[in-house]
């Protein structure tokens, strides 16, 4: 189990996983989302290579309506 902070909320993940794994875990595979990990962007091309670590702070965002 690892502990992360996702979009400002503490979250426990059942197992070690990559960013792509997290997206799948949240049922968001194939959706247009972007990830920032500990202040740095994780490019799409690295989603399946970047492993999450205990204490990671993640931001997961989408585009929404706005002016």
């Amino acid at each position, binding site marked *: 189990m690892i502990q992360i902070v*996702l*979009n*400002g*909320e503490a979250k426990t993940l059942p197992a070690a996983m990559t960013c792509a794994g997290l997206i799948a875990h*949240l*049922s*968001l595979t194939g*959706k*247009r*989302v*972007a*990830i*920032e990990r500990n*202040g740095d*962007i*994780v*490019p*799409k091309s690295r989603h399946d290579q970047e492993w999450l670590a205990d204490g990671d702070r993640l*931001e*997961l*965002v*989408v*585009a*929404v*309506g*706005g*002016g």
Partner: protein
Amino acid sequence: MQDPLIIAGREYGSRLLVGTGKYRDFAQTAEALDASGAEIVTVAIRRVNLGQNPDEPNLLDALPKGRYTLLPNTAGCYTADDAVRTLRLARELLDDHRLVKLEVLGDPTSLFPHVTETLKAAETLVKEGFDVMVYTSDDPIVARQLEDIGCCAIMPLASLIGSGMGILNPWNLQLILEQSKVPVLVDAGVGTASDAAIAMELGCQGVLMNTAIAGAQDPIRMAHAMRLGVQAGREAYLAGRMPKKLYHGSPSSPSAGLITSCK
């Protein structure tokens, strides 16, 4: 293209830029965008709502693919740091998209822009290769500094965001217009079509609005009205208005050949 709006080297046929917020649903958003004739539309970047159904429709899926140039914004950011992070995420989200709208707010009630944080963020973003259209106050000194930093468009407010108060200080806008070499667009405060027309008659290169359309009783019809208002204002600007004459009327009909009453 005749009389295109040129931003960051790209030509656009429409001088009306519109937001995608505050509509009833995505269908109404799409219909209003279509009626406005806009080619550049703003979007906001927000945290994924983790509680929500992942199959809920997404704004990007609701807009016709490839039709619009998306302009991700930093609405709701109060520091340069948050604005820069937001736009880095936007660039990643939209596949290395560079054209962005920077807005850093300074007060949650008035939503007045925080110009020093805006300057700081603009500096970083330009260095990182973003094409920055920047929302700012109507202070000509700040506008010049933003242009010197390398912003590709200066977007002063006409009045407060979402207020619909119209153009409160045309004199300041004029000062900004006279000094700027990059496009100046009015962003925020437009309430109805005449406000958009006035902005364009002043010589603005375009107008950006959201609430004026989304908050109208009939948003689709208002989107169309804004399209016409912007076009009318632009045409009037290019035509060059007649000089104003103070204190003296000038008849439109000939003064000679009038019938006179018999004495």
